[in-house]
């Protein structure tokens, strides 16, 4: 489709339309909202990782002056009955309901048990302390390998292993076994001159958005529910509420406030149903619930810790003959880890004839895994890319040359057999190999350079948008995609490009669920791709309508009017976009359009990262000296925000690689549930992050867009591990590669 080679707006760097509000503090995030008569809530959370709830006594809390309502699982609709009538497809709703408030069992430290609404947040917090819960404490299961053992304590009373529709007979913590098989790995390994086999462990990590979850609800007397919240997808919130509260969709309106980061962690609801129930129970008062970071870390997110075994073999010439992986991912308390995504990523950048992947989705006593930027991909790439580095070493090959030799190209088949379309894997690896960073000398002791590649499939999904033309030629755009990282800009730019008008003429607005058509959340690197596509269609429709208006004015057929360079013309008649907009009154009134799209032709993204590290062999500390991230983005709509996405992904990947990780004590209590001890990188922990944008347009998008946000988090831990090896000669196979682990690997402690 990419008939346009040069763009007027796409590829430029305009100021974001919501910028002034955000730098002056005026932008309204969920916790900034104040409604008349608003009550404040507090949540009682389980101090135990695994415990049966024998009784809950809320009477003392209810008696505290200022307390307006107390809600427990008994106030949630009985989804059990619904599940029975609908079959297994609704199983997620049941688990989600159980996650909102613990019902029979508390399944992780921090699992919500009861919630209070009161006149002030301080009273609500005092009331929570007055709730008496009688627990029967059970042994926790915190380790994925332990959870898989036959004699492990069982978390869920009905879980049997699913193997593509076939259910196991025994109760288990292994929710599912997935398998992908291509060719014959045994034969492949026989052909190999060199094989490498290693086991990797990765910690549970959190998305780490700075704004905690918050939700305000008004359950009106007429049964209408309005929710103001911090979410990546307002329609997703509506869908979840409909199921959990068992109310009709038409009764729910979700207003997405500005969102202070999500990274996948703000798709699932946690507080929204509680705020709604409290509002109903407190006499239809608006109720606000907010988390602090202890709650965020112990009861939202995280993404799966994992154990991954990888074996790869290659011929002397570097051709990889076989690759095998065994992946076990923690799902948290309920099934649903991103293990299948990990299986998609693990050998994604390579064309390999013989592949065997086994993936296991395993429940443990931790919060249920939520999506996190390329979910499951970082774990998988850490394992595979370290093994490839070792293969390169054993073969005596440059690690990027080895990757290039095996790089996937259009037509190559992934492990699941599906063939790649036009992809930029080779272009990315070549750009990395040719980058000055890769060639630069790295003098000094205990320093090393590592590289790693990564892939991510991206996504499309449903997007809607509507627009109305103003008489001055500006255009009001209403979209349903929550703006987390500047998507108002990238969406407006695509509409401006299509309409051939300045981007400043577009007035974007993110609308609530009553105002715009169904739009999936801002996740999966889909927004610039799919909502961008929606506004491309929207722009074409507006142009069509305006051609009709011009035809009216000029008394010609609409088909005779052309639109070029921002000017409508026919014969000698010419009107600019703004001029024609000024004549709407005489030609039939307002010009408005709405579209909805559901594109399926998203394009995968590839990245290659180069990192220089210095290791202090006495303390085990790893410092990042220089970082370069190369990535195919299809087409960079707003290059500054593309760079920002890449830099942000790298920063999270560095944290995952070096310092982040859940630390549970033996009883299963999360000991580092604060931003002090859950160590995300500060400005002093990161160097400048150089980005190299490669543009291999996605033929499946009108402007060649792929998706940017996810793949940059995939390579960093592997690249750092490979750099550490070059620096001090030890292979780190456990994340995070904390100073203690580096010291241990060096035999120092």
């Amino acid at each position, binding site marked *: 489709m990419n008939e346009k080679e040069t763009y007027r707006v796409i590829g430029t760097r305009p100021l974001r339309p919501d910028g002034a509000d955000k730098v002056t503090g005026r932008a309204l995030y969920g916790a900034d909202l104040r409604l008349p008569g608003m009550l404040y809530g507090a949540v009682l959370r389980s101090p135990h990782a695994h415990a049966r709830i024998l009784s809950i006594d809320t009477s003392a809390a209810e008696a505290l002056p200022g307390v307006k309502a107390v809600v427990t699982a008994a106030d949630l609709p009985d989804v059990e009955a619904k599940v029975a009538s609908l079959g297994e497809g609704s199983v997620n709703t049941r688990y989600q309901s159980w996650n909102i408030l613990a019902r029979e069992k508390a399944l992780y430290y921090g699992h919500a048990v009861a919630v209070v609404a009161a006149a002030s947040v301080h009273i609500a917090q005092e009331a929570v302390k007055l709730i008496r819960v009688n627990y029967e404490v059970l042994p926790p299961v915190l380790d994925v390998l332990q959870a898989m053992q036959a004699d492990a304590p069982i978390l869920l009373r009905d879980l049997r292993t699913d193997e593509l529709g076939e259910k196991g007979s025994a109760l288990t913590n292994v929710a599912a076994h997935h398998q992908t098989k291509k060719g014959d790995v045994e034969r492949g390994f026989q052909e190999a001159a060199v094989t490498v086999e290693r086991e990797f462990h990765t910690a549970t990590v959190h998305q780490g958005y700075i704004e905690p979850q918050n939700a305000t609800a008004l359950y009106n007397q007429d049964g209408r529910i309005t929710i103001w919240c911090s979410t990546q997808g307002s329609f997703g919130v509506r869908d979840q509420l409909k199921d959990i509260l068992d109310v009709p969709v038409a009764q729910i309106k979700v207003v997405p406030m500005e969102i202070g980061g999500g990274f996948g962690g703000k798709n699932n609801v946690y507080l929204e149903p509680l705020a709604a129930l409290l509002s109903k129970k407190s006499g239809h008062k608006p109720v606000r619930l907010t988390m602090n970071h202890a709650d965020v870390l112990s009861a939202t997110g995280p993404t799966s810790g994992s154990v991954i075994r990888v074996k790869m073999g290659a011929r002397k010439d570097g051709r990889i003959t076989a690759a095998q992986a065994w992946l076990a991912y923690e799902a948290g308390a309920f099934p649903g880890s991103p293990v299948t995504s990990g299986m998609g990523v693990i050998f994604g950048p390579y064309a390999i004839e013989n592949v065997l992947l086994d993936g296991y989705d395993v429940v443990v006593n931790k919060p249920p895994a939520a999506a996190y930027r390329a979910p499951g991909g970082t774990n998988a790439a850490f394992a595979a890319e370290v093994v490839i580095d070792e293969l390169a070493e054993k073969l005596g090959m440059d690690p990027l040359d080895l990757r290039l030799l095996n790089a996937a190209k259009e037509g190559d088949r992934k492990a699941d057999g599906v063939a790649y379309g036009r992809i930029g894997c080779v272009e990315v690896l070549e750009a990395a190999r040719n980058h000055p960073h890769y060639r630069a000398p790295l003098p000094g002791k205990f320093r090393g350079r590592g590289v790693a590649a990564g892939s991510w499939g991206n996504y499309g999904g449903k997007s809607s948008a509507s627009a109305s033309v103003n008489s001055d030629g500006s255009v009001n755009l209403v979209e349903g995609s929550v703006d987390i990282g500047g998507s108002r800009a990238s969406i407006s730019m695509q509409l401006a490009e299509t309409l051939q008008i300045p981007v400043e003429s577009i007035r974007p607005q993110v609308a609530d669920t009553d105002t715009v058509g169904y739009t999936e959340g801002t996740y999966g690197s889909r927004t610039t791709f799919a909502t961008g596509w929606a506004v491309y269609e929207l722009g074409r429709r507006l142009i069509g309508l305006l051609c009709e208006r011009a035809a009216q004015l000029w008394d010609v057929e609409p088909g005779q009017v052309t639109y070029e360079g921002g000017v409508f013309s026919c014969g000698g008649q010419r009107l600019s976009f703004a001029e024609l907009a000024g004549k709407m009154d005489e030609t039939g009134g307002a010009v408005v359009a709405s579209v909805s799209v559901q594109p399926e032709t998203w394009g995968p993204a590839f990245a290659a990262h180069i990192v220089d590290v210095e290791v202090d062999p006495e303390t085990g500390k790893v410092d990042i000296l220089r970082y370069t991230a190369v990535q195919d983005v299809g087409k960079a709509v707003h290059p500054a925000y593309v760079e920002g996405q890449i830099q942000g992904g790298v920063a999270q990947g560095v944290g995952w690689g070096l310092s982040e990780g859940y630390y549970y004590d033996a009883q299963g209590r999360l000991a580092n549930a604060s931003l002090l001890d859950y160590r995300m990188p500060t400005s*002093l922990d990161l160097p400048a992050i150089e980005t190299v944008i490669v543009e291999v347009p996605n033929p499946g998008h009108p402007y060649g867009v792929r998706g940017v946000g996810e793949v940059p988090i995939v390579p960093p831990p592997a690249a750092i591990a490979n750099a550490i090896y070059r620096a001090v000669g030890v292979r780190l196979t456990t994340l995070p590669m904390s100073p203690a682990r580096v*010291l241990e690997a060096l035999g120092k402690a």
Partner: protein
Amino acid sequence: MRAFEYLSASSVREAVEALAARNGRARVLAGGTDLIVQLREGRREVDLVVDIKAIPEANRLEFDLQTGLLVGAAVPCYRMVGFLNAAGIYPGLAAAAGLVGGTQIQGRATLGGNLCNASPAADTIPALIVHRAACLITGPQGERELPAEDFCTGPGQTALQPGEFLLALRLPPEPEGFGAHYVRFTPRNEMDIAVAGAGASLRLAGSPARIIEARVALGAVAPTPLLVREAGASLVGKAPTLEAFEEAGRLAREAARPIDDMRGTAAQRRHLSGVLVRRALETAYQRASRGGDA
């Protein structure tokens, strides 16, 4: 947060009386960077918070060549660090105090608060110990002084008696040939709590130089900051060599009683104790051989 009363005391007497009257249910507020968090998280419950920032004696920040340094308990870190750096004095203490939190925390946190919070990992306490700092305590029975190494009695526990509070810290002048330093290890470069920390001071005399006095203190490897007397003693009489520093480090490693927790492992902390003591001594030695910290 549970409700409490607030008093901004304007005199030592007013503070002492208010604290004594609440019989252990009152707590001093200086910078608040620990206390407010503890109150909010319900880890500490009080009926009264006594703010000492308006007490003139708690705000003193004075240096005298004869009597040394006096730092009021309410002096925020940024102010003290700026004062020390501008005057070029007590660089070892400045190094430690400058590590307490990021810029925002530096604007509020105090030396006195760091001491009274009695965290085993507090950065300033090992530095105070190796500087032979004295804690000036005031209370219903009047004033008393206590060596910094005796102030903390357990995690969050101090030698303060009911009604008493820490008014100021006094550091003796840095004698000729004296140098001190504090180093810590944290995985992040800022905004982190010491996995292990080490303070060291030594005094050189003679030619060729010999160590005539030395102190070594550890943080985050025991229930309280630890003065490792044997490590200091091992240095006295020796030439300031790497071997001597490493031997002191080895003794410190043996004295450490670390645990595994979310911030680090026991093995790592034990190992770091030795490394950090050596590093602290190396810098202390450089300072000493330049003719003292001043």
